[in-house]
């Protein structure tokens, strides 16, 4: 406990109690807050707790709306967890930062040299500086990667270290991240949000800026390109939307202007890596990977991997693609290496380590093993390989039986284990439940190689434990993040990401190719949302009619409702529904209606379409502008909050559907106002047009293709016009005179009406022609032929013949035939588009290994 005399102790009447014997960032070992903390806390004090809480909430709102998430494995219900940001940053003085920075650069240097040696001459093994078991026994050492490193100045392009402060106040490295370090994007987003919610304090504090780091990252990636050094094509290789840090992959792709790709977007041919795009194969020069290295090439490494690219390592070997970081670099993440770094630093650099590692004993050596076994109670025991069943354990928390078990495991495979000192990390102030309290913290720092040098991000991602007195800091366990403010002695210059070309240089716009996968997702974003819209509109007119049958008790209303309910089943494809059911079911449709609205496990329901829309949009997160993403999020989140997670009755549906309609329209409006009319737009809009045509046809088939008595016909026509948002335009055109051919003229043929079938077909045919353009010669492609036929059939139809009354039948036969043929052809068109443009769906399969029968 501390004295309560300094002003920084009294923060908004909150008492800040540090823990005994633990270093605190704010106090160091003194009784008074450090000067830079004192200034920050004084500013906070002036603001007051209530206002600060408002700022915190504002930060959370911004993060949520920007879609900043962290995916939690094995939590299918709540896949994406909103990113948590505590508004009190970690403050690091400029003086201290100098030494941290120097330490990180030195460490990156050292690890780079070790990597080069392990996959090259292996002098460290030959000279006995590293034991063979330590390297060969680690999963990160990949035999196929031997001698596969490029001729680069630096092999380790990106490096990240987790730092924490020990009880004596000096910074230690907890572990090194060397294959695909994550977190830099989250750090940048944290900063963006902090400057918005605490602009005043941020400005007064003189904080070093982060953007220069990303400029260097880009330069570093350009530097390692084996070809096209002036303008290499760089992609970010992601495992996909289920990965825990997928948000960051999409965020960095958008920020740096690279294509975000998954393994099957790429293919290896002629000894090079290619991106499959709508316009053919595009050569790739550099891959920034977010896939663990053993998963990157199923041919030479983990054969069951669906995430990688077959043949990738062979392309690397030939020097035709550079990967950051190189395949095999996870060998440096072996915690057993920590014990050898001081010696290797002297060997390679002739220097002592500037940033010490946490004290580590590798059990592969007898003396160290004996020490670990004797001191097991005071150590953390870790396997050198990270895996699902390989956890660190605190020796002191084990029962004596568990301890014996662990001892015999160590004795059996000693090289497999390390012992580490159990350290109490420093604490730092955190704003939790409107109070300021100390939490254990670790800082993830980032380093990038540009040419010969390493540069450190002036800042980083600070994370604190989710509970007080808890030392486990991890995002999977629900950690909270913080911004990291490295203080400058003078104001940092604002660095602009843009570069100026040399005078008189002509600049060509780079059109990033649209990957087949992204095209596929865009197409389905359009289709799912359009489906949701059609169902919403139809549901709204059903609810009106439902109300009227209860209010007026007119049997014609009841008949009209029946027709609309059956139409709903047809449009959503949720058979048997209202098609095959008894009169009672039609009389009390509430349960079925609610199910069609809420039940997300039911195919065709509104919720299932909204979910599918969200999933497809999330899979191409990097495509959406911030505003557009916010509208995607709104559609999904509000629906979850207001309909899925609440007890909704039929009476409350109408307002929720209106609300949904508004957010759908916001998305539609934003996309049509902010997307350039290139391939991405064509795909999105094609999906939308195709689906709208299909939904309209389904609607017309089950309402107007049937013959009704006059009174009923009027009601049905009106309901159809309402469901297609066309009532007012009809009334303006034809006054109160309602007639089938006129309605059909508007909804089927009128190409100037955006809700007519004709309009959809016209747009589709424009889109399809633009996609096929430049592809081939004088012959029409199959999709061009299909749309030409569909469009022409509709244009050539004669409405008066189609609606000719034939006394015997209750159906307009020719009309019905036209609609059913058009519908079939549209479905076929959708298949052809998928086959032609979404070729990534071709599945790879493993040829069998030599079968056993042929072995002696």
């Amino acid at each position, binding site marked *: 406990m501390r004295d309560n005399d300094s002003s920084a102790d009294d923060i908004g009447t909150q008492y800040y109690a540090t823990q005994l014997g633990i270093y605190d960032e704010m106090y160091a070992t003194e009784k008074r807050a450090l000067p830079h903390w004192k200034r920050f806390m004084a500013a906070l004090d002036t603001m007051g707790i209530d206002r600060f809480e408002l700022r915190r909430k504002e930060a959370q709102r911004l993060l949520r709306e920007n879609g900043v998430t962290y995916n939690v494995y094995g939590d299918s219900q709540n896949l994406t967890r909103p990113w948590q940001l505590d508004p009190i940053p970690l403050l690091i003085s400029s003086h201290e930062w100098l030494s941290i920075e120097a330490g990180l650069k030195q460490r990156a240097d050292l690890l780079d040299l070790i990597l080069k040696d392990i996959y090259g001459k292996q002098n460290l*093994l*030959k*000279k*006995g500086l590293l*034991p*063979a*078991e330590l390297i*060969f*026994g680690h999963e990160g050492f990949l*035999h*196929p990667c*031997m001698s596969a490193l490029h001729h680069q100045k630096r092999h380790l392009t990106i490096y990240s270290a987790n730092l924490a402060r020990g009880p004596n106040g000096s910074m230690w490295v907890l572990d090194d991240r060397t294959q695909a370090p994550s977190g830099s994007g989250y750090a940048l987003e944290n900063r963006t949000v902090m400057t918005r919610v605490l602009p005043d304090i941020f400005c007064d504090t003189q904080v070093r800026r982060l953007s220069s780091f990303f400029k260097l990252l880009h330069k570093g990636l350009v530097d390692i390109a084996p070809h096209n050094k002036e303008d290499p094509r760089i992609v970010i290789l992601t495992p996909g939307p289920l990965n825990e840090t997928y948000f960051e992959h999409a965020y960095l792709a958008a920020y740096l202007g690279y294509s975000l790709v998954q393994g099957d977007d790429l*293919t*290896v*041919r*002629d*000894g090079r890596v290619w991106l499959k795009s709508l316009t053919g194969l595009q050569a790739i020069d550099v891959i920034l990977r977010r896939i663990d290295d053993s998963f990157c090439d*199923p*041919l*030479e490494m983990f*054969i069951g991997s669906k995430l990688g690219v*077959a*043949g990738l390592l*062979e392309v690397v*070997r*030939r020097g035709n693609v550079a990967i950051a970081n190189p395949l095999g670099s996870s060998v440096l993440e072996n915690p057993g290496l920590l014990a050898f770094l001081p010696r290797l630093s002297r060997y390679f650099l002739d220097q002592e380590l500037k940033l010490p590692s946490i004290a580590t004993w590798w059990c592969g*050596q*007898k003396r160290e093993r004996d020490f670990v076994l004797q001191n097991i109670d005071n150590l953390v025991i870790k396997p050198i390989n990270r895996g699902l069943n390989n956890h660190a354990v605190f020796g002191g928390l084990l029962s004596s039986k568990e301890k014996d078990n662990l001892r015999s495991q160590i004795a*059996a*495979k000693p*090289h497999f284990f390390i012992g580490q000192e159990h350290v109490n990390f420093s604490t730092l102030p955190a704003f939790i439940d409107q109070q300021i309290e100390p939490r254990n913290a670790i800082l993830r720092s980032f380093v990038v190689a540009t040419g010969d040098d390493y540069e450190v991000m002036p800042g980083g991602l600070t994370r604190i434990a989710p509970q007080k007195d808890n030392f486990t800091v991890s995002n999977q366990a629900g950690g909270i993040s913080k911004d990291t403010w490295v203080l400058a002695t003078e104001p940092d210059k604002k660095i602009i990401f843009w570069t100026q070309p040399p005078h008189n240089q002509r600049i060509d716009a780079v059109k990033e190719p649209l990957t087949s996968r992204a095209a596929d997702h865009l197409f389905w974003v359009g289709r799912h949302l359009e489906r949701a819209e059609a169902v919403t509109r139809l549901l709204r007119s059903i609810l009106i009619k439902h109300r009227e049958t209860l209010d007026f008790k007119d049997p014609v209303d009841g008949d009209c409702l029946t027709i609309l309910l059956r139409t709903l089943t047809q449009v959503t494809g949720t058979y048997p529904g209202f098609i095959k059911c008894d009169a009672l079911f039609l009389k009390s449709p509430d349960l079925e209606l609610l199910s069609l609205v809420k039940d997300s496990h039911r195919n065709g329901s509104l919720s299932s379409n909204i979910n599918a829309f969200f999933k497809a949009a999330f899979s191409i997160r990097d495509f959406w502008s911030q505003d557009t993403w916010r509208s995607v999020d709104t559609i999904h989140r509000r629906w979850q909050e207001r309909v899925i997670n609440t007890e909704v009755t039929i009476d409350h549906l109408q307002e929720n559907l209106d609300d949904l309609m508004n957010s759908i329209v916001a998305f539609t409006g934003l996309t049509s106002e902010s997307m350039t009319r290139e391939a991405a737009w064509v795909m999105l809009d094609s999906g939308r047009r195709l689906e709208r045509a299909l939904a309209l046809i389904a609607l017309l088939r089950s309402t107007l293709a049937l013959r009704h008595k006059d009174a009923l016909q009027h009601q049905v026509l009106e309901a159809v016009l309402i469901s297609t948002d066309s009532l007012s335009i009809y009334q303006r055109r034809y006054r109160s005179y309602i007639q089938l051919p006129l309605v059909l003229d508007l909804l089927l043929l009128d190409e100037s009406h955006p809700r007519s079938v004709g309009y959809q077909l016209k747009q589709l045919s424009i889109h399809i022609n633009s996609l096929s353009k430049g592809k081939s010669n004088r012959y029409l492609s199959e999709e061009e032929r299909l749309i030409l036929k569909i469009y022409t059939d509709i244009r050539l139809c004669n409405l008066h013949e189609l609606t000719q009354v034939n006394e015997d039948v209750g159906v307009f036969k020719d009309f019905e035939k036209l609609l059913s043929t058009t519908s079939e052809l549209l479905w076929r068109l959708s298949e052809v588009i998928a086959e032609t443009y979404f070729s990534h769906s*071709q*599945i*790879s*399969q*493993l*040829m*069998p*290994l*030599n*079968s*056993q*029968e*042929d*072995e*002696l």
Partner: protein
Amino acid sequence: MKYRITHSTLYHYSQSVGLCQSEAKLQPRNFWRQHCHSSYFDISPKPIDFRERSDFFGNRVAYFAIQQSHSKLIVTSISEVSLYLRQHNVDLVNPIKWEQVRNFLQGHSQSQTFLTQSHESILELIEARQYLLDSPMITIIPDLADYAKISFHPGRSLIEVVYDLVARIHKDFTYDPASTSIATPLFEVISLRRGVCQDFAHLAIGCLRAYGIAARYISGYVETLPEKGKPRLVGADASHAWFSVYIPGTGWLDFDPTNNTMPIDQHITLAWGRDYADVTPLKGIAFGGGQHTLSVSVDVLRLK
């Protein structure tokens, strides 16, 4: 002894394959008792991209990619190899005890080792030590140590231990191609007491590693002789597997637990590694293809 080996693998696909990447370890390597005079591939359809290299273990590897559409793939390798009888009887009576070998490999006085040994023997030792560890298909489990225990008498020479272990595996285990697959784990092989050459090699390696002895896996061929009075059948041979154990002072000695022999002049070595996963003769990733069938033929012809 000179041989010509023809190894042919045929894949038949129900649907066409648009792209196929493969890796073959089907060319015999050279070492002290084997020289490969020539080795070439005949692949149909012809691969657009073909390149040879050697891998971490010094084995010969061929990478090839077929980029045109095909529904049938034939990979044939034809090699001519001479075997030399250079085994010294002295090697077979190396009296070094298994405990001595274990301690030597564990390097109880590691730093001292590096000071006193010659450069070559240090390299040999480092190389051997990687074959002590778990590998993709061989995880050391107590079952292995239990099975091998009877062979590891205290104070017994390592060579005697291995002879005994090989003889026991040959006696205790039934050769049965139907009983296991490539994916059958070792503990299952132990409880089934059945398997094929690959399983027996893995088993022996696992038993040795469980006692701190370095052992590696060898893929290759063995010459089979027709029964008396019957003509030799072309293509009826098969690929084979056995193992090698490291004995300080002697080097690597081969043993064939399937046939309870020491390979000398009838075993042709293709490649070696920690286990089957390192030396898979032919593997690949095909795009498309649907269902497929596979047939293999191997012919080992003695030339002189």
